[in-house]
């Protein structure tokens, strides 16, 4: 009973806020999407930003920022990080893995421990994050300013878990690449046509 009331309330509030922005009127928002409080207004940086900055360079696998159940195997990871299996934890969503077909998570994602001082200093400066994708004009969908290999699930970074600045304003749309095309120059593996 309580849950239904809440759902109705959420739906009403959601529709009100969307109605206020004419460019964002949804037509058939799935029920499951209404359950989630997609916040379009700015809020403080999500944990995602911290995680992103622990990468050695843009494109490196981020180390795991939390303790893990067992150092032995990667079976536990998908319990929280499987695609479309987002779990609420302290009002934050958990990023699904962008590459679920790779099952040996800990092969690339090692433990992170900010308390460990480096054994020797290292002067490596890694590739920084790309800037924004280019837009043909205002309101047109920006291009994808990074390669898409291993990033097949866009909502991993751009969904509710992601850093605020890159969080999608329309997470209920699932076919991202229909509008957001890749930039050839970012994808070194594709033939460069000139």
């Amino acid at each position: 009973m309580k849950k239904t009331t809440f759902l109705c309330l959420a739906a009403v509030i959601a529709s009100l806020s969307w109605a206020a922005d004419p460019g964002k009127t949804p037509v058939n928002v799935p029920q499951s999407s209404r359950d989630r409080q997609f916040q379009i207004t700015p809020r403080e940086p999500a944990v995602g930003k911290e995680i992103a900055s622990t990468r050695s360079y843009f494109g490196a696998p981020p180390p795991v920022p939390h303790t893990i159940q067992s150092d032995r195997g990667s079976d536990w990871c998908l319990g929280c990080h499987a695609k479309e299996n987002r779990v609420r934890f302290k009002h934050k969503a958990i990023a699904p893995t962008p590459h679920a077909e790779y099952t040996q998570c800990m092969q690339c994602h090692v433990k992170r421990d900010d308390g460990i001082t480096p054994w020797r200093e290292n002067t490596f400066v890694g590739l920084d994050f790309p800037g924004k994708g280019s837009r043909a004009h205002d309101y047109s969908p920006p291009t994808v300013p990074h390669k898409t290999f291993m990033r097949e699930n866009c909502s991993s970074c751009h969904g509710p878990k992601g850093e605020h600045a890159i969080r999608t304003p329309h997470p209920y749309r699932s076919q991202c690449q229909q509008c957001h095309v890749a930039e050839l120059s970012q994808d070194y593996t594709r033939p460069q046509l000139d």
Partner: protein
Amino acid sequence: MIQQNRRAFLKQAAMAAAAGALSGTLPANFNGLAEGADQLIWAKAPCRFCGTGCGVMVGVKDGKVVAVQGDLENPVNRGLLCAKGYHVGSALYGSDRLTQPMVRKNGALQPVSWDEAIDTVARFVMKHSAEFGVYGSGQWTITEGYTAMKFLKGGCSSNHLDPNARLCMASAVVGMITTYGVDEPAGSYDDFDECDTVVLWGNNPAEMHPVLWSRIVDRRSKGDKIEIFDLATRRTRSTEAADHYIEFTPQGDLAIANGICRYLVQSGKGRYDRDWIEKNCVFREGEDGAGKPMSFDDYAAWLETYTPEYVEKVAGVPPHQLERLASTFADPKRKVLSLWCMGMNQHTRGTWINNLVYNVHFLSGKFGKPGSTAFSLTGQPSACGTCREVGTLAHALPGGRLAANEVHRSHVETAWNLPSGRLNPKPGFHAVAMFDGLQSGTLKGAWVQVTNPAQSMPNLHKLTDKLKERFLVVSDIYPTVTTDAATVVLPSACWVEKNGLFGNSERRTQQWFKMVEPPGDARDDVWQMIAVAHRMYELGFAGMKDKDGKFLFSIKDASGKEIEAWKWDVFRKHNVDKALFEEYRPLTHLKQKNVAPYDELVKTRGMRWPVTEQSDGTWKETSRRFVRGEDPFASPDREIDFYWGKVEKGKATIWARPYQAPPEVPDEKYPFWLTTGRVLEHWHTGTMTRRVPQLNAAMPKAYVEMHPFDARKLNISTDDKVRISSRRGAIELPAWINGRSLPQKGLVFVPFFEETALINQVTLHEFCPLSKEPDYKKCAVKIEKV
């Protein structure tokens, strides 16, 4: 559009800059050059780390590596890397990179000029050329190993040249040679894509060959069913993805393999592939490499010792588990891939256990067929390409030749334009013998390149305590425990700071171009040796002359003109790698290990030998050796042709090799087995990976792992300080209980990456008599809480 023009401009500018900065080593339009809006130059290279040989795309900006990605076009890894691979670029940038040559004067290392360093080394080698060793590495590039061969064997008539691969792959090598007459795996990674059953024989690929492990295990994501048997002495990350964990007592692998063979040949049951055996195998018994003939019936009778009860007694494996594994081999429909690495090779009967695993695959007919093969995994990135193919071993010459063989020596003397009799027929010191020689003073000095023996040799007190008293030349990139003992330290270029070639586990030779400058005054190992050789030539050392009195190393540029490669400013302007590789290449033809031409390697993501030229001028690689239709040298009259078969041409040997207990077993005083090994995050002695902050933070310290029941009895919990001691030495480490691996009761595991926890002070140096490879996996220790 402005963006388009800007991009084109940047691309041109980058290429021009690259060409200028790198002195012409990168041709204008080499494969992989793609410059994005981020102004990075991307180029291919095989990874610096393990024997998988993943393809890496290296992103360079302003003369530094800033990013690394998996190379989607490389069939080895198809874009995936592992934690070490993703951080391989960072490994170049530790702030204590060696940048200046140093010579020890009055006990301390002092910076000197390159001229002084080269002169110092040259004079010593000239004076003591017969008592000087070269200790090389499976991380040597192909041309570095080749240069060392020419330097010591061709220039000094000495065979005291051996690599650290002796400690790693020697048993696999001698196993293959005694089994089918020639080195290196017959199968390839293609078999990983086809198998439906995998048997791990005492290895942990989830941490040691992660991308190959993923290649198999991630097939399950696509619906493939793969049954995995993990035969091990402890539970590891590989066990987590396995269906069966078969725990065995150390050294019990010999009994298990024979137990499976017995199951297969038991008369009347017809579980072995009789037809295949009769066509393709002969039987032999004996302890050495020659043995004596054996009939099949005698072999079947010999196997009767290895009943399930005997296997259980010796190896601790219950009969139902042995039967489960054996019946899988007996199933003709199964495609079985066996994988192994150090568990079988670092073994006092390493050659035997390698022979026995081939027996299992031959008897069950699971060899030379898609998905069915016995595949020896190589640990280092170029133990195959350099040590084994170039022959950087105390008894070998390039291309699978033997120093003791007069015909082989004459081939190489001709190729190197040496006077007849220059090459020494007497095999030199293998690794353990070399360090034994340095310890006793029989050898007065050695040149160590690309490896860290003062941490990685076994029984360190016995083999390395006196290194400081010898003339030790060390070429390395960081200070290590070995440079601590050095007389001369030569700062070296690493990975993409030089041109290079590696050969991986599946016989794939891969090439890369120099992409960034080495730091400070660090220089290529190849240059270092040529420079010393030339200084010796200048000082009148006869060995550094060929038979016409000219300098031993004759390097020509692209137009065919000789260049003074011993001068650094000349060396770095030319692709000396290509010149040396092309000189080496014809030597690979004797045993049909034909490597691809350098230019083909530039264009491709490597090629698996034998590589042969087709009628249309293209070059074709080989996936499976010996198999009709795939191997160009296999006879068309046979399904499989072991054309180097020693006993009978075309046939491989099934060896009756018995179980034999290891030299040291736990007893009352030292009640635990000690097994050593690696972990995912660190490569070998950690000199590169511990300097990567992300990898160091993930695994900062070495530890000792034991079974929780054992820990409880000793009142040890995680983080407690523990003293681990053997008859040879003792160290202290923190304990880690219920951590990454779960050792069997009575066994402890310690990784060897930390230079302040030298576990090799505790290990023994006993080695397989046939391969000379020491056993790092079993000795007896006692454990005490400190």
